[in-house]
């Protein structure tokens, strides 16, 4: 039984609780300096997310500046090649090239309402950095973006875009110089000015209320996709796939389907080059419970609770933790999580580009790899893939990998 407006949301949408718990996961593990700032953010979330003026402005920005609703595309050739019915939810067509803009616009509007004087953000692939820089430029707020030095190099096109959009980009050289240390550095910046600075976090991670806030802002993906599937096919998909770094595009796609028990939901993590600690970024597949960056969740750590460096060909998935709601959905069994390797993702990227005329981001290509695997064992299945972003930003790394092979 399916309704047009979304499943029986109440039974599954009751997490998080007031303290930000998704079952045992989530919470708020931050220095005392940030507690009052998070309380103010919580008050803002309570006040504005349900406020008609705020929602009207958010919807209008999404429609006229971001370009929503994004298309639902039937992937005819992939359907034929895989022996399935494949549909793509095209977040790559959103302004700035990925789903990240939904969250960035929402949080920047909220920051403005809360009287913030500047926006800070972290970024891995550079997509949240570009989205934040664009939203801040549009709303007239200065923006500083923290980015691991390794990512600055491998996502160079996005660094230039952020600068053109007026943002200050700060490379972070500690640790493995990727997303996790960029978040650490953004948190330090925020601790220094918790009253004037708004930290616009880029995924469904961090201390409460961020995982909830980001989910609510990204759920537009799944709401649109669900309605579009019903309209175009008269039915829901059998399975939906999304890549999982911190988990924002995945929770945004999945959440409106949670109550639809017939829809299999699958999150695809970065399997990197293997199963060993340090060889992947698949915290749901290989991680253990712990506290990282404000939240109790599944993390890639050693036996002494030291968070370990990760590896993925994709900067946006290269993170040792994951949003607490995904840890919860794994534990309840409602969502399945699996890993796709660097090689599988690059292969899926090439296939999609060649046969659908769409160059997906390397992050996104992990979802394609997972979907292709599923199609192999479920002939004829109707499959929805969250096409979270476009791959233009990945040219430096594609040049060194698949294009080398094509030369």
């Amino acid at each position, binding site marked *: 039984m399916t309704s047009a407006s979304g499943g029986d949301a109440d039974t599954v949408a009751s997490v998080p609780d007031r*303290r930000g718990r998704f079952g045992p996961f989530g*919470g*708020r*593990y*931050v*220095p*005392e*300096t940030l*507690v*009052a*700032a998070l309380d103010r953010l919580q008050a803002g979330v309570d006040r504005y997310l349900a406020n008609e003026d705020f929602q009207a402005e958010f919807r209008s920005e999404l429609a006229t500046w971001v370009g929503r609703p994004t298309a639902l595309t039937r992937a005819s050739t992939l359907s034929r090649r895989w022996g399935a019915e494949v549909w793509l939810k095209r977040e790559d067509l959103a302004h700035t090239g990925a789903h990240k803009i939904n969250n960035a616009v929402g949080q920047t509007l909220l920051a403005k309402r809360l009287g913030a004087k500047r926006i800070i953000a972290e970024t891995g692939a550079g997509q949240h950095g570009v989205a934040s820089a664009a939203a801040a430029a549009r709303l007239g707020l200065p923006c500083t973006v923290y980015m691991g030095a390794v990512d600055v190099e491998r996502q160079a096109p996005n660094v230039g875009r952020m600068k053109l959009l007026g943002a200050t980009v700060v490379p972070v050289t*500690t*640790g493995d110089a990727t997303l*996790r*240390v960029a978040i*650490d550095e953004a*948190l*330090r910046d925020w*601790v*220094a*000015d*918790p*009253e004037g600075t708004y930290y616009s976090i880029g995924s469904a991670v961090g201390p409460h209320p961020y995982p909830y806030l980001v989910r609510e802002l990204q759920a537009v993906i799944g709401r649109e996709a669900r309605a579009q599937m019903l309209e175009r096919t008269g039915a829901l998909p059998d399975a939906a796939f999304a890549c999982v770094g911190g988990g924002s595009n995945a929770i945004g796609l999945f959440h409106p389907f949670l109550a639809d028990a017939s829809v299999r939901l699958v999150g695809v993590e970065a399997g990197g080059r293997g199963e060993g600690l340090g060889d992947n970024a698949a915290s749901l597949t290989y991680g253990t*419970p*712990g*506290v*990282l*960056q*404000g939240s109790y969740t599944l*993390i890639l*750590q050693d*036996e*002494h*609770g*030291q*968070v*370990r460096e990760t590896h993925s060909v994709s900067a946006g998935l290269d993170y040792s933790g994951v949003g607490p709601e995904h840890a919860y959905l794994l534990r309840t069994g409602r969502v399945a999580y699996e890993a796709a390797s660097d090689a599988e993702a690059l292969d899926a990227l090439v296939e999609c580009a060649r046969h659908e005329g769409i160059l997906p981001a390397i992050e996104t290509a992990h979802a394609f790899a997972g979907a292709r695997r599923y199609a192999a064992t479920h002939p004829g299945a109707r499959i929805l893939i969250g096409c979270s972003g476009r791959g233009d930003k990945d040219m430096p790394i594609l040049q060194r990998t698949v294009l080398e092979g094509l030369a």
Partner: protein
Amino acid sequence: MSIAPHEAIGAAIAAARRSGRTALVGFLTAGFPSRDRFRDDLAAVAAAADVVEVGVPFSDPMADGTTIQRASFAALANGVTLPWILGEVAAVTAAGGAPILLMSYLNPLLAYGLERLPRAAAAAGVAGFIVPDLPFEERAELRGALDREGLALVQMVTPVTPPQRLERLCADARGFVYAVTMTGTTGASAEVPADVLAYMDRVRRAAPVPVCAGFGIRTREQVARFAGHVDGVVVGSALVEALERGEDPRAFLASLR
């Protein structure tokens, strides 16, 4: 009659106050600058300071500035772990000296296991814990576990902690209240304007235990400025840097008095 470990902290600070001094709380990162010398360094600090904080290194020290970050990463590279730290601390506390607290982010403590941590820490002579990423609302489990062994869980307050919350946080503090001098991470030199002193006075009125100011305290002038407004001062990054330069921590701490 023996007193609980958490009471030994207050007693050490009170003893300093009785002799007319602001208590000195010395912080050093375990296993930095050298793993081999750590036991000697710790003993030297425990002989010169009134209370000691031993930093348990963590991969993601989000409340720390560059000095303690660098010290943490180097200590981890030296193979420092919590079980090793407990062994070193036990060797030093066996000989007496100032009460020793462990300053640790939550995750290494979770990995050790909150069930077995309090007993192991008490056996090593640890007097309490400071956990910078564990706010009041999330502390129940650890606080309960430490209470059973009489260990302190030191509460931090900051200049941006709202007044009512400050009262609540102070009311049931153990050991001492750690009053952070400023918004920001550890290390950067703190100014001590009049409003910071007024904030310290407020904390002191609310706290049933001694109050120690910390973050950014590096000079004798700063220590003198806080005198009369707090019971003690925490010296962290500056002491770590002195150890890194190879200076005698006793001489460095004496220079702040």
